[in-house]
Protein backbone atom coordinates (compact mmCIF):
# COMPACT_ATOMS: atom_id res chain seq x y z
CA UNK A 1 0.00 0.00 0.00
CA UNK A 2 2.60 2.37 1.13
CA UNK A 3 4.91 1.06 -1.61
CA UNK A 4 2.35 1.80 -4.28
CA UNK A 5 1.78 5.21 -2.72
CA UNK A 6 5.46 5.92 -2.86
CA UNK A 7 5.59 4.75 -6.45
CA UNK A 8 2.50 6.78 -7.24
CA UNK A 9 3.84 9.95 -5.74
CA UNK A 10 7.17 9.32 -7.40
CA UNK A 11 5.35 8.89 -10.75
CA UNK A 12 3.47 12.09 -9.96
CA UNK A 13 6.61 13.98 -9.33
CA UNK A 14 8.29 12.56 -12.40
CA UNK A 15 5.22 13.54 -14.46
CA UNK A 16 5.46 17.13 -13.43
CA UNK A 17 9.18 17.07 -14.03
CA UNK A 18 8.49 15.76 -17.53
CA UNK A 19 5.92 18.49 -18.09
CA UNK A 20 8.51 20.99 -16.94
CA UNK A 21 11.04 19.53 -19.39
CA UNK A 22 8.50 19.82 -22.19
CA UNK A 23 7.76 23.45 -21.39
CA UNK A 24 11.40 24.29 -21.00
CA UNK A 25 12.28 22.61 -24.26
CA UNK A 26 9.43 24.40 -26.02
CA UNK A 27 10.53 27.74 -24.64
CA UNK A 28 14.10 27.00 -25.66
CA UNK A 29 12.88 26.04 -29.14
CA UNK A 30 11.00 29.28 -29.62
CA UNK A 31 12.56 32.17 -27.76
CA UNK A 32 16.37 32.19 -28.28
CA UNK A 33 17.50 33.87 -31.45
CA UNK A 34 20.25 31.38 -32.01
CA UNK A 35 19.01 28.59 -34.23
CA UNK A 36 21.26 25.95 -32.68
CA UNK A 37 19.65 26.48 -29.27
CA UNK A 38 16.29 26.15 -30.92
CA UNK A 39 17.12 22.75 -32.33
CA UNK A 40 18.45 21.56 -29.01
CA UNK A 41 15.31 22.84 -27.31
CA UNK A 42 13.17 21.05 -29.86
CA UNK A 43 15.01 17.80 -29.15
CA UNK A 44 14.45 18.28 -25.45
CA UNK A 45 10.79 19.04 -25.89
CA UNK A 46 10.19 16.09 -28.20
CA UNK A 47 11.85 13.74 -25.79
CA UNK A 48 9.59 15.07 -23.06
CA UNK A 49 6.56 14.48 -25.23
CA UNK A 50 7.78 10.92 -25.78
CA UNK A 51 7.82 10.51 -22.03
CA UNK A 52 4.30 11.87 -21.84
CA UNK A 53 3.28 9.23 -24.37
CA UNK A 54 4.63 6.66 -21.93
CA UNK A 55 2.36 8.12 -19.29
CA UNK A 56 -0.48 7.87 -21.72
CA UNK A 57 0.12 4.16 -22.00
CA UNK A 58 1.75 3.79 -25.37
CA UNK A 59 5.28 2.55 -25.31
CA UNK A 60 5.22 2.04 -29.06
CA UNK A 61 4.31 5.64 -29.84
CA UNK A 62 6.94 6.90 -27.43
CA UNK A 63 9.55 4.90 -29.32
CA UNK A 64 8.25 6.12 -32.66
CA UNK A 65 8.36 9.69 -31.38
CA UNK A 66 11.98 9.33 -30.50
CA UNK A 67 12.78 7.55 -33.73
CA UNK A 68 10.99 9.85 -36.17
CA UNK A 69 11.14 13.25 -34.55
CA UNK A 70 14.32 13.19 -32.62
CA UNK A 71 16.11 10.74 -34.89
CA UNK A 72 15.00 11.96 -38.29
CA UNK A 73 13.43 15.39 -38.33
CA UNK A 74 15.75 17.08 -35.91
CA UNK A 75 18.77 15.65 -37.69
CA UNK A 76 17.38 16.92 -41.00
CA UNK A 77 16.98 20.38 -39.49
CA UNK A 78 20.53 20.30 -38.24
CA UNK A 79 21.63 19.40 -41.74
CA UNK A 80 19.66 22.29 -43.14
CA UNK A 81 21.29 24.65 -40.68
CA UNK A 82 24.69 23.45 -41.67
CA UNK A 83 23.92 23.76 -45.38
CA UNK A 84 22.67 27.30 -45.14
CA UNK A 85 24.66 30.31 -44.01
CA UNK A 86 25.70 30.17 -40.36
CA UNK A 87 22.79 32.21 -39.13
CA UNK A 88 23.76 32.24 -35.55
CA UNK A 89 26.21 34.90 -36.62
CA UNK A 90 23.50 37.13 -37.93
CA UNK A 91 20.84 37.76 -35.32
CA UNK A 92 18.79 40.86 -36.05
CA UNK A 93 16.97 42.65 -33.27
CA UNK A 94 13.33 41.85 -32.70
CA UNK A 95 10.80 44.51 -33.49
CA UNK A 96 8.46 45.39 -30.68
CA UNK A 97 5.20 45.89 -32.61
CA UNK A 98 5.61 42.54 -34.24
CA UNK A 99 6.40 40.93 -30.92
CA UNK A 100 3.34 42.45 -29.34
CA UNK A 101 1.13 41.42 -32.22
CA UNK A 102 2.49 37.87 -32.10
CA UNK A 103 2.00 37.60 -28.37
CA UNK A 104 -1.48 38.99 -28.67
CA UNK A 105 -2.55 36.65 -31.43
CA UNK A 106 -1.00 33.61 -29.76
CA UNK A 107 -2.60 34.38 -26.44
CA UNK A 108 -6.00 34.90 -28.02
CA UNK A 109 -5.62 31.56 -29.67
CA UNK A 110 -4.45 29.96 -26.44
CA UNK A 111 -7.42 31.41 -24.66
CA UNK A 112 -9.67 29.95 -27.30
CA UNK A 113 -8.19 26.46 -27.13
CA UNK A 114 -7.97 26.50 -23.37
CA UNK A 115 -11.54 27.68 -23.03
CA UNK A 116 -12.74 24.92 -25.33
CA UNK A 117 -10.67 22.32 -23.46
CA UNK A 118 -11.88 23.39 -20.02
CA UNK A 119 -15.46 24.24 -20.79
CA UNK A 120 -16.33 21.08 -22.63
CA UNK A 121 -17.74 18.24 -20.55
CA UNK A 122 -15.69 15.36 -21.90
CA UNK A 123 -17.44 12.05 -21.73
CA UNK A 124 -15.65 8.72 -22.13
CA UNK A 125 -17.09 6.20 -24.53
CA UNK A 126 -19.56 3.77 -23.02
CA UNK A 127 -17.55 0.66 -23.84
CA UNK A 128 -13.83 1.01 -23.78
CA UNK A 129 -11.50 -1.64 -25.12
CA UNK A 130 -8.20 -2.40 -23.46
CA UNK A 131 -6.29 -3.66 -26.44
CA UNK A 132 -3.11 -1.56 -26.62
CA UNK A 133 -0.93 -4.08 -28.37
CA UNK A 134 1.16 -3.34 -31.47
CA UNK A 135 -0.38 -6.41 -33.09
CA UNK A 136 -3.76 -4.74 -33.12
CA UNK A 137 -2.29 -1.54 -34.50
CA UNK A 138 -0.59 -3.45 -37.30
CA UNK A 139 -3.72 -5.42 -37.97
CA UNK A 140 -5.89 -2.32 -38.19
CA UNK A 141 -3.36 -0.54 -40.38
CA UNK A 142 -3.56 -3.32 -42.94
CA UNK A 143 -7.31 -3.84 -42.77
CA UNK A 144 -9.54 -1.00 -41.73
CA UNK A 145 -7.07 1.81 -42.33
CA UNK A 146 -5.40 0.31 -45.36
CA UNK A 147 -6.53 3.14 -47.61
CA UNK A 148 -5.26 5.83 -45.22
CA UNK A 149 -2.04 3.90 -44.91
CA UNK A 150 -1.58 3.86 -48.69
CA UNK A 151 -2.47 7.50 -48.99
CA UNK A 152 0.08 8.48 -46.39
CA UNK A 153 2.66 6.39 -48.24
CA UNK A 154 1.81 8.23 -51.43
CA UNK A 155 2.07 11.57 -49.64
CA UNK A 156 5.50 10.64 -48.36
CA UNK A 157 6.61 9.56 -51.83
CA UNK A 158 5.37 12.79 -53.38
CA UNK A 159 7.05 14.76 -50.63
CA UNK A 160 10.37 13.06 -51.30
CA UNK A 161 10.12 13.63 -55.06
CA UNK A 162 8.99 17.19 -54.48
CA UNK A 163 11.86 17.90 -52.17
CA UNK A 164 14.34 16.54 -54.68
CA UNK A 165 12.81 18.54 -57.51
CA UNK A 166 12.59 21.75 -55.53
CA UNK A 167 16.20 21.75 -54.48
CA UNK A 168 17.35 20.44 -57.85
CA UNK A 169 15.49 23.04 -59.87
CA UNK A 170 16.55 25.87 -57.69
CA UNK A 171 20.14 24.78 -58.06
CA UNK A 172 19.84 24.78 -61.82
CA UNK A 173 18.12 28.14 -61.77
CA UNK A 174 20.52 29.82 -59.44
CA UNK A 175 23.73 28.54 -60.94
Amino acid at each position, binding site marked *: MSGSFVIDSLAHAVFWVVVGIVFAGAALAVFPRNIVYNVLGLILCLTGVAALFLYLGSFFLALMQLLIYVGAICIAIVFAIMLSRPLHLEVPKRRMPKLAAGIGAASIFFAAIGAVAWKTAWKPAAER*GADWTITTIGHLLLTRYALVFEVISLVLLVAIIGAILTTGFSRRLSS
Partner: protein
Amino acid sequence: MNSLSVYLTVAAVLFSLGLFGVLMRRNLIGMLISIELMLNGANLNFMAFNRFLAPEPAVGQIMALFIMGIAAAEAAIGLSIILALFRRLRSINVERAQRLRG
Protein backbone atom coordinates in the same frame (compact mmCIF):
# COMPACT_ATOMS: atom_id res chain seq x y z
CA MET B 1 -2.18 14.44 -12.37
CA ASN B 2 -3.57 11.93 -14.77
CA SER B 3 -6.59 13.85 -15.87
CA LEU B 4 -7.54 14.76 -19.39
CA SER B 5 -7.52 18.47 -18.68
CA VAL B 6 -3.89 18.49 -17.68
CA TYR B 7 -2.84 16.87 -20.92
CA LEU B 8 -5.08 19.18 -22.92
CA THR B 9 -3.55 22.16 -21.18
CA VAL B 10 -0.04 20.95 -21.84
CA ALA B 11 -0.95 20.36 -25.47
CA ALA B 12 -2.53 23.85 -25.71
CA VAL B 13 0.60 25.42 -24.26
CA LEU B 14 2.78 23.54 -26.73
CA PHE B 15 0.53 24.54 -29.62
CA SER B 16 0.40 28.19 -28.61
CA LEU B 17 4.16 28.38 -28.12
CA GLY B 18 4.59 26.89 -31.58
CA LEU B 19 2.10 29.36 -32.96
CA PHE B 20 3.93 32.22 -31.32
CA GLY B 21 7.14 30.94 -32.89
CA VAL B 22 5.57 30.77 -36.32
CA LEU B 23 4.29 34.29 -35.96
CA MET B 24 7.49 35.69 -34.55
CA ARG B 25 10.56 33.96 -35.93
CA ARG B 26 12.22 35.50 -38.94
CA ASN B 27 14.41 32.52 -39.38
CA LEU B 28 12.64 30.05 -41.64
CA ILE B 29 14.20 27.09 -39.87
CA GLY B 30 12.95 28.52 -36.62
CA MET B 31 9.48 28.65 -38.11
CA LEU B 32 9.79 25.04 -39.13
CA ILE B 33 10.80 24.08 -35.61
CA SER B 34 7.79 25.93 -34.25
CA ILE B 35 5.53 24.08 -36.66
CA GLU B 36 6.94 20.81 -35.30
CA LEU B 37 5.97 22.01 -31.84
CA MET B 38 2.41 22.69 -33.00
CA LEU B 39 2.16 19.26 -34.56
CA ASN B 40 3.33 17.72 -31.32
CA GLY B 41 0.69 19.56 -29.44
CA ALA B 42 -1.94 18.12 -31.72
CA ASN B 43 -0.37 14.70 -31.37
CA LEU B 44 -0.50 14.93 -27.63
CA ASN B 45 -4.19 15.78 -27.83
CA PHE B 46 -4.86 12.71 -29.90
CA MET B 47 -3.01 10.47 -27.48
CA ALA B 48 -4.79 12.02 -24.51
CA PHE B 49 -8.23 11.54 -26.01
CA ASN B 50 -7.21 8.04 -26.93
CA ARG B 51 -6.22 7.31 -23.37
CA PHE B 52 -9.24 8.82 -21.64
CA LEU B 53 -12.19 8.79 -23.98
CA ALA B 54 -11.85 6.61 -27.04
CA PRO B 55 -13.56 3.22 -27.33
CA GLU B 56 -10.67 1.58 -29.15
CA PRO B 57 -7.18 2.43 -27.90
CA ALA B 58 -5.52 1.40 -31.16
CA VAL B 59 -7.20 4.06 -33.29
CA GLY B 60 -5.71 7.08 -31.55
CA GLN B 61 -2.26 5.61 -31.84
CA ILE B 62 -2.76 5.08 -35.53
CA MET B 63 -3.81 8.72 -35.87
CA ALA B 64 -0.70 9.82 -34.03
CA LEU B 65 1.38 7.68 -36.35
CA PHE B 66 -0.18 9.32 -39.35
CA ILE B 67 0.56 12.74 -37.95
CA MET B 68 4.16 11.75 -37.55
CA GLY B 69 4.19 10.68 -41.19
CA ILE B 70 2.73 13.98 -42.24
CA ALA B 71 5.24 15.78 -40.07
CA ALA B 72 8.06 13.94 -41.75
CA ALA B 73 6.74 14.84 -45.20
CA GLU B 74 6.24 18.43 -44.15
CA ALA B 75 9.75 18.64 -42.78
CA ALA B 76 11.22 17.26 -45.99
CA ILE B 77 9.32 19.67 -48.18
CA GLY B 78 9.83 22.60 -45.85
CA LEU B 79 13.55 22.06 -45.64
CA SER B 80 13.91 21.72 -49.39
CA ILE B 81 11.94 24.93 -49.88
CA ILE B 82 14.16 26.64 -47.35
CA LEU B 83 17.26 25.45 -49.17
CA ALA B 84 15.87 26.62 -52.51
CA LEU B 85 15.00 30.00 -51.05
CA PHE B 86 18.45 30.25 -49.53
CA ARG B 87 20.04 29.66 -52.92
CA ARG B 88 17.84 32.35 -54.37
CA LEU B 89 18.09 35.05 -51.74
CA ARG B 90 21.28 34.04 -49.97
CA SER B 91 19.21 34.29 -46.81
CA ILE B 92 16.61 32.39 -44.90
CA ASN B 93 15.02 35.42 -43.35
CA VAL B 94 11.34 35.28 -44.15
CA GLU B 95 11.08 39.07 -44.09
CA ARG B 96 13.37 39.27 -47.06
CA ALA B 97 11.10 37.04 -49.16
CA GLN B 98 9.00 40.01 -50.25
CA ARG B 99 8.65 39.48 -53.97
CA LEU B 100 4.84 39.72 -53.67
CA ARG B 101 4.88 43.07 -51.93
CA GLY B 102 2.09 45.31 -53.20
